[in-house]
């Protein structure tokens, strides 16, 4: 058995997914830290950006990598919570594809100010949520982000499929 019981394999799968998600999120954060102007994001205070004025290290990739990483990471995390079935994987990936797409479209110049105006006042003072209006009003809509979000969801789906297929095959062989 080599200690590879179904329970251990399941734990191994979860660990792999969590590590991949954490890596993707970390990568997205690094892009913000190095390649975004100080103060350009709510969670990025001006004092954190010690590298402003230096050439952007991620180049054009830095423009869309965080969106890709976000939908990829949260697709994996949600699927991990929902279970190991293909339906869980599909739900996790499509849910975050939809959420990210809606937020991105919400930054469209003709739409963003209206959404910002409609943002409830009671969100003010709540950490992060208080930035909702600013997110829609001052965020930048970029069609490349829509593609990145789609690719991120697709990559998460492929990762989950590949992971489960590989593990299921291994599990199947071992139990024969």
């Amino acid at each position, binding site marked *: 058995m080599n200690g590879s019981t179904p329970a251990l394999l399941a734990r191994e799968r979860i660990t792999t997914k969590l590590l991949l998600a954490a890596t993707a*999120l970390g990568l997205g954060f690094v892009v*913000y830290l190095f390649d975004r102007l*100080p*103060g*350009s*994001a*709510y*969670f*990025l205070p*001006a004092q954190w*950006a*010690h*590298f*402003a*004025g*230096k050439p952007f290290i991620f180049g054009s990739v830095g423009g869309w990598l*965080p969106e890709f990483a*976000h939908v990829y990471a*949260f697709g994996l*995390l*949600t699927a991990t*919570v*929902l*279970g190991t079935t293909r339906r869980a994987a599909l739900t996790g990936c499509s849910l*975050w594809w939809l*959420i*990210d797409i809606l*937020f991105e479209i919400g*930054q469209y110049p003709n739409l963003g100010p209206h959404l910002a105006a409609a943002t409830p006042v009671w969100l003010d003072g709540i950490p*992060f*949520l208080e*930035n*909702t*209006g*600013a*997110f*829609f*009003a*001052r*965020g*930048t809509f970029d069609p490349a982000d829509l593609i990145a979000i789609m690719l991120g969801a697709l990559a998460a789906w492929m990762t989950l499929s590949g992971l489960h297929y590989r593990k299921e095959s291994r599990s199947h062989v071992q139990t024969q």
Partner: protein
Amino acid sequence: MSKLNNHKQHSILQRCLLLLPVLALGVLSIVGSGGGPVVQPNTTMVGLSVGTLVKTSGIIDVTNNCNPATPPAPNIQAWWNGMPPTNRTFPFVGFELWRNTTDGCTTSRLDVYRALVTFNMASVSNLKGLVNKAELIVSTRALPAGVTAGNTSCVAFTGGAGTLERFGPAAASSLPPVTGPGVLTQFQPADPFPVGNVVFTFPRPWTSGSVPGAASPTATLASGTGGATFTVDVTSQVTAALNGGFPGMSWMLTSAFEGPLTGPVASGGLDCKTSYAFQLRLTHL
């Protein structure tokens, strides 16, 4: 059957409880990733120390009677001491020509002035990583009487300024002294002036607009008081100095005419000492 249903319900509830923080974290990270607070750029003027450098050279007439000197030779130290303290904080660049005209005497003298400025970068070290733009602003404060039509070395708008030179961050310690109130340093004829890297040559005649051939983007405009202002984009140098933790950044104006004299100076001489003001303006978050 009932136990199985209970177990299933418990499992669904557990998943929902786990899903909530994931959803919350995901949405919050989206909201927090954009539309940062509107940050108004701030402007900081960097503190500075200045110095006026002067070196004298000339031609001595040994064949004619040159005593007493007419007019008397310029006394540099007396001129400096007699100046209002405020004026010493605006260093001088240019030159002064003197000719002794007693009984056909041809003795002539050239005093070359250079303006040196060092900005105190240590005082703005807290702006490391926050500077969006850095501009060196060099402007004429007082034009000399020697600015006359047809004189190619002492021209309108810029007087006796020849070039702007930049020194590397490590050069500050080897440069002549500079102080807040301004200091005069007289060089011996054999002593060389410090040598920097030319940023731009003052256009002669002066014309407004972009300065051609400048090593750093430079634009010049008339100051409205008969002089001119030069604005040099020094963002990359300032960023490098702040990142490197260098305590100072120095620039120097050289004279439009630094000799040597090849013959006697025309009677009456020429005063082309021009006073300049320096500012280093940082635009930052």
